[in-house]
């Protein structure tokens, strides 16, 4: 038993050393630009209607933005940026994904790559979005359709390499 135990500890240690090294792409050059936004996923207006149409989506996005700016975990990333402009980009991006008749004109998601955003920061934003959608009575199935399209953006948004864990003074 203990021979196999030590074999496994050895294997696990080597995987820790090896896997992250091969799994993470080099920080430079930047990954090739994907399409500036996620694809439109709805063929009809069922999804946008689940969000209460353009009007409902606009109200939800405004609530989402308020929650993000009040969220101590991530509010710092928005300091010095034009909040109304960001909210407009978010609305257009969501609206385009939901086939709501909008076009996203903002930049590629990989502009975030050097902001030091961690995976936990990304998920904090998702939690705020889930809370806003739930508060605006968006059904769970429709929430998950939108989140499924947004989730892969984590690869463009999360900093490479990861932000160090030490306090930054």
């Amino acid at each position, binding site marked *: *038993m203990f021979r*196999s*135990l030590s074999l*496994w*500890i050895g*294997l*696990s240690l080597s*995987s*820790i050393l090896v*896997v*992250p090294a091969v*799994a993470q792409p080099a920080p430079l050059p930047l990954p090739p630009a994907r399409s500036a936004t996620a694809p439109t*996923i709805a063929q009809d207006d069922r999804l946008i209607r689940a969000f209460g149409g353009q009007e409902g989506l606009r109200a939800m996005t405004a609530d989402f933005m308020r929650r993000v700016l009040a969220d*101590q*975990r991530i509010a*710092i990333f928005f300091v010095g940026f034009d909040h109304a402009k960001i909210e407009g980009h978010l609305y257009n991006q969501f609206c385009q994904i939901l086939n709501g008749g909008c076009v996203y004109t903002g930049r590629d998601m990989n502009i975030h790559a050097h902001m030091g955003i*961690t*995976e*936990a*920061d990304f*998920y*904090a934003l*998702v*939690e705020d979005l*889930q809370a806003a959608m*739930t508060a605006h009575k968006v059904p*769970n*199935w429709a929430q*998950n*359709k939108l*989140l*499924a*399209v947004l*989730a*892969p953006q*984590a*690869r463009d948004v999360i900093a490479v390499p*990861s*932000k160090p*864990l030490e*306090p*930054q*003074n």
Partner: protein
Amino acid sequence: MKRVRAIAAYTLAAFLLAMVQPSPSVAQDLVQDMPQAFSGRLKLTGGVNQIEGAAGGGFTPWALIGGYGTKDQVGGAMFATQVTLDDFTVQSFGGLIGWRNRLEISAAQQSFDTREVGAALGLGRGFKITQNTMGLKIRLVGDAVLDQDRLLPQIAVGAQFKSNDRGGLVRALGAQDSQGTDYYVSATKLFLAHSTLVNLTVRSTQANQYGILGFGGLGKGRSLESEGSIAYLPRQDLAFGFEWRTKPDNLAIAKEEAAMDLFVAYAPTKNWSVTAGYADLGHIVTRSQTGLYVSVNTSF
């Protein structure tokens, strides 16, 4: 045996210490300067603890790393489970630590109360068999939650080192050993657009009834067994689903069959979940055993 117990005890102690967090005012001062230290992942995305302690469903390990730690964090979970069957009661408790969403180390103890059957077999009423399990799991590739544009699941390999305290009894039943190691590969995928999680696990094992009845039998070596789970998430705090787990049938005098269960998991907060279900564990010693599965999990 003693060593395994000591390791389990130290692991649990480390956990309790890790859960002691600074007071809110200190935490608020720190939060401006420090990235989040704990619980970065989304609710229920660490699964619960399966019967042997690994992150998974009720009986099946998943490729997910337990707790809520991201690739920059350490997470953990503790659990207690009871399965009340027709003739027996199975209990399990323990905990795990997830390191950087890469490595999971778990320790758990399973006990098997023979209740009245113990008296009938001359072992004594309420005779208990106890097993300690240490688990290791390594995520190899994929992210079950984030990779929504890829078919590649999250894939992990794991091992469970088990040690049973009734060597004499299990040998008398025909088992070859009171210790054994299971190896497994798990693939887990969240199909978020369909609010559905799917897991498949292949396990190489010699364990009889999870190891409760020892390991191996006459002329039988390792066998490859399949396990699976499918869960539907109608809300962010709710999952219900189905699992199966095939098992070896090594002992001539105690037939063994596949286990399956239907479960509902509810997480009223991100840090607590309760799972309840109907379990059909197949034939165990006397006859086919069904009953109620209840488990409480805390994750950070």
